[in-house]
């Protein structure tokens, strides 16, 4: 079972188990991770599930699709490693993934 570590804006890390095929956003909600709101439930239409992929993982996770890139316009303090966590699917290759959550989603 892959694990994912969420690091909050204040630096607190929480490692949780994730299920292959689910999204990083769903994993966050199931585990009560703060700083992920996911208002649209994963429809890529709210940008309140914004995360920063840790530098070690950006390559494996890859970049956003054009639709996601558009939606990132509605997020704040967007960085090159920004992703919408509802658009990242969990798989064995992402075992150990680290993402940072922003202080504010909207």
């Amino acid at each position, binding site marked *: 079972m892959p694990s994912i570590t969420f690091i909050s804006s204040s630096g607190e890390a929480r490692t949780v188990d994730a299920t292959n095929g689910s999204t990083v956003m769903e994993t966050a909600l199931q585990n009560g991770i703060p700083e992920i709101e996911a208002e649209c439930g994963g429809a890529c239409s*709210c940008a309140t599930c914004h995360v920063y992929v840790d530098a070690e993982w950006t390559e494996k996770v890859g970049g956003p699709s054009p639709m996601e890139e558009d939606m990132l316009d509605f997020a704040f303090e967007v960085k090159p490693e920004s992703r919408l966590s509802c658009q990242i699917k969990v798989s064995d290759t992402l075992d150990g993934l680290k993402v940072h959550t922003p202080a504010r989603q*909207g």
Partner: protein
Amino acid sequence: MTETIKTDAVIIGAGPCGLFAVFELGLLDIKAHVVDILDKVGGQCAELYPEKPIYDIPGLPEVTGQQLTENLMAQIKPFEPTFHLSEMIESLEKLPDGSFRLGTNAGTVFETKVVIIAAGGGSFQPKKPPISNVDEYEGQSVFYAVRKMEAFRGRDILVAGGGDSALDWLLNLQPLANSMTIVHRRDDFRAAPDSVNKMRALVAEGKVNLVIGQIGELKGPGGKLEAAAVKLPDGTVSEIKCDALLPFFGLTMKLGPLAEWGINLEQNLIPVDTEKFETSEPGIYAIGDINTYPGKLKLILSGFHEAALMAQSAIRRINPDKKVVFQYTTSSTNLQKKLGVA
């Protein structure tokens, strides 16, 4: 002061459940006014997922958020509801005769016998940029919507964002402005291509200043904006002179003013009974995503059921002498007349 609208029912929220409440109330001859802060009806279905299919609406194997909204609008048309869009209900108070007075942020005042709160996940409100002191500037120098274009004449305007709202207002306000700058995080705009082309033409003519970056800090004393610091992609900061900032970063659902109306709340939801879907205040009902009760499911179909039972109670309050007879739309000529099909 605008005239007070006197009515039987005011529905707060034009999401699927608020719309269907018009139908259920209408069958009982109750006319409703519907208020929503969005400029369109449909709530989450229209704002968050208009093109996504929904598979669990009974009798409709597959329907998109937008189609469902359109179907509901067709279904409630015979009841001629009055819509007040782009208006938020801000205040709700009880009057001595047991009715309620509601006020919107646009100055509309209602006096109504019953109130139906169908506020869903809360009112859709503009996202505020994460600038620590943005509150100080709101209303004076920072605006999330344009109510009167004239108020922007001769100003140095900074628009932030890359979507349709940002570009529409840039194009509308540019002729009035003393100067117009747009700041966006990338040199790609999701807005309609036609608007983007017009904006690029104005940039080429030197009439609009395009800055790629993200707003950092606002400068100026006492809420009077003088400049905005913009973080550029290379990490440096550029200061842009402006006295009006219009940030357009989409919408987010906030509980909003209903927390201050004196009805009981439980974790930002309104507890109701499951017979009438009434709140702690008799005459105020809550249906759809905003309410909670044992076993509540935040589904559209639950909200539809809640609307039907709510209406049965509302009619008894609005017109206590009226005898309510249970009827089917299939066979009741009376109901069919109301629907305009008999």
